């Protein structure tokens, strides 16, 4: 190997093989993924583009480096206990990310996975965690190692009437009397983004566990017209906890993502189980 051109060509070939395998091939396969058909044949395509405030919030998530502690990828059951911890109802797949501006899957878990944060928390809960992670009414979070992000909030004197956006906090974390904590736009955007994260509908590459019955999906799995009543069911179920002012608009748009609730083992109950202590 004493010949410069041979060395160069060999290197070029090695590089080309790697490039074709890891860049060109996947680009050809997935470069133009379209919204998926869902198993439950919901009336809306999945996923949706995030609404404006949540898209802004993705920028805050990136700028604060949230992805250095939180992943957004749920592993399949055989590769880790992510599902058993209630971090999702199915594994994450490529389809879940096609409308993300910057995809931030994360590489390390210093905090819980957030791929389905929107199924566990509403925007107010996210804001409360940003103000003081140890404040959340959950025994476990008293020991959270997450820093607080108080620079995303204003503490200001209450005017004639309290602000509609003011954050309710426990007395030990409250500001002095006559002051209130008001999230800045960045905080509300971040909360809308996190509360909008959900990988809820079953897809053909991430099917429901065996035995799940769908009243609104034909057994053959083709995309027959959806059953309207069940779709409505799903909407109600998903929106149930999102009653806070900051994100009603946000959550409304990508609501009907869960399969209808007529099957016995409704996956949502696993997510919302109040006894599961796995919140951040």
């Amino acid at each position: 190997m004493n010949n410069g051109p041979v060395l160069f060509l060999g290197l070029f070939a090695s590089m080309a093989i790697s490039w074709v395998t890891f860049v060109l091939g996947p680009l050809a396969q997935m470069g133009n993924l379209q919204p998926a058909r869902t198993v439950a044949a919901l009336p809306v395509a999945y996923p949706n583009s995030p609404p404006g405030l949540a898209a802004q919030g993705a920028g805050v998530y990136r700028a604060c480096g949230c992805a250095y502690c939180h992943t957004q990828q749920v592993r399949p059951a055989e590769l880790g206990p992510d599902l058993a911890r209630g971090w999702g109802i199915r594994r994450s797949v490529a389809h879940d990310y096609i409308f993300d501006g910057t995809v931030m899957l994360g590489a390390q878990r210093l905090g819980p996975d957030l791929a389905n944060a929107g199924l566990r928390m509403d925007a107010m809960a996210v804001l409360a965690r940003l103000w003081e992670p140890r404040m959340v009414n959950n025994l476990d979070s008293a020991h959270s190692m997450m820093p607080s992000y108080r620079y995303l909030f204003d503490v200001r004197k209450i005017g004639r009437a309290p602000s509609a956006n003011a954050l309710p906090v426990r007395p030990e974390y409250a500001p002095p009397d006559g002051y209130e904590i008001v999230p800045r736009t960045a905080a509300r955007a971040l909360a809308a983004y996190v509360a909008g994260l959900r990988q809820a509908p079953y897809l053909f590459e991430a099917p429901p566990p065996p035995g799940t019955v769908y009243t609104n999906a034909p057994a053959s799995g083709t995309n027959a017209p959806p059953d309207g009543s069940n779709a409505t069911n799903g909407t109600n179920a998903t929106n149930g906890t999102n009653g806070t002012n900051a994100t009603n608009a946000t959550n409304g748009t990508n609501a009907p993502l869960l399969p209808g609730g007529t099957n016995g083992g409704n996956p949502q109950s696993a997510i919302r189980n109040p006894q599961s202590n796995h919140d951040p």
Partner: protein
Amino acid sequence: MSDEARTELEASGAAPILCLFAGASLWLLLASILALLDSVKLHNAGFLASRPMWTYGRVHAAGDTALLYGFCVPAALGVGLWLLCRLGRTRLAGPVVATVGALGWNAAVAAGLWAILRGGGTGYEVFEMPGTVAPLLLVSYLLLGICGVMTFRQREAGPLYPSQWFVIGALFWFAWIFSTAGLLLLASPVRGVLQSLIAWWYEHNLDTVFLGFAGLAPIFYFIPKLSGRPLHSSYQAALAFWMLALAGSWGGIPGGAPLPSWLVAVSLVGTVLTVVPIAAVAMNLYLTVGDALPALDGGPALRFTCAGLIFWVVAGAQQVAGALPSVGTLTDYTWFTVAQRDLFRNGFAAMTMFGAIYYIVPRLAGAKCGAPDGLWKRSLARLHFGLMLAGVALGYVALLVAGVFQGVAFQNPANSFTAVMRGTMMGLRLSTLEPLLLTLGTMAFLLNFALLLKGCMARCRRESPAGPGMGKEGA
């Protein structure tokens, strides 16, 4: 070739190479300080939490960027250019162009770090340099890389030494992966999870292939040279080189990634195949030096280089182990992988570069005034080595153990996530010593470097007849 002629040839590259080394060591100091802040934040959540600029995610991104782009890449370029001159028995081609490249690179790193701390990072791990800075980085790199390739082309005829392959490989590799990542992540971003795929591919290639090549080049040169024994086998070196280029460039994708499973499988196969280059290099250099190593006194250069080699083998073996599905299930996303990357970058890449820097700098700085070896303060060099070795080893073991415990505890869903993380606290507290010791070690090195340059300048002035007022002192 006489020593004087060789010194004179090598001195042609003094300005750009010293500029690269000086900038690199200053960035390393900053990287260690940022890593220290970062590490304290892990067990003291309120530490520096009130300002957006010092938030954990930004400090972490800036620290990684300062280490990789501030220290590793320019130090690798400096060492590579010097090796091409030395092994090709030629002058550095285009020293002015290379100096411009070195200055441009450092300016780009400064701008990029500032942008990251202000919240302008891209969001891709180890590719955080914003789109406004990345082109300047690439152009500066190309200026330096072209000088390297031109130097290689004007080499004296004769067989190539393995270190030359490794340097040339590294020069091309970074240009390819950096421009691919820049194009597909920043200039015209690809859709969805392909971004993560390209970011993983980039990070894996940057570590395993680029830094691997860049670090193995001085290892293959200095270990035989400073131990006074010929390299055992250049066939084994060629095997390691090609296997690293082929298999090392496949990998970096975690087992449960939301990607088609064929990609995960290909990544696994590539990573497992890197045992071949690891075994080939370890065996080759062991058979070169053998058990004579403890008796040798090669000074700081040999000590740092050997430590770097050992850490490369350990980090590589751990990478293979962590890629196996049975292990990865436990260790993915835990401190285990962080320990591996830290060992690779601080243990292998940084220590190998320092080994080369300890050898190269006196030959460049002292070349113009004929200064001999021994310009370094040996006590400071020893201190630097001790601090760095202790820091890297301690931090590695602490994070590795914390990672294994974290992974095992995480498997049982009955352990709440916070409880799992609480179990890693002792390891995290211990691992804070690593950036602390590295900061002190880098300070010792910078002091040594400054004293050396000062000594060289004083000597030059004494020896130059034109120096006003200095002639008497020298007489």
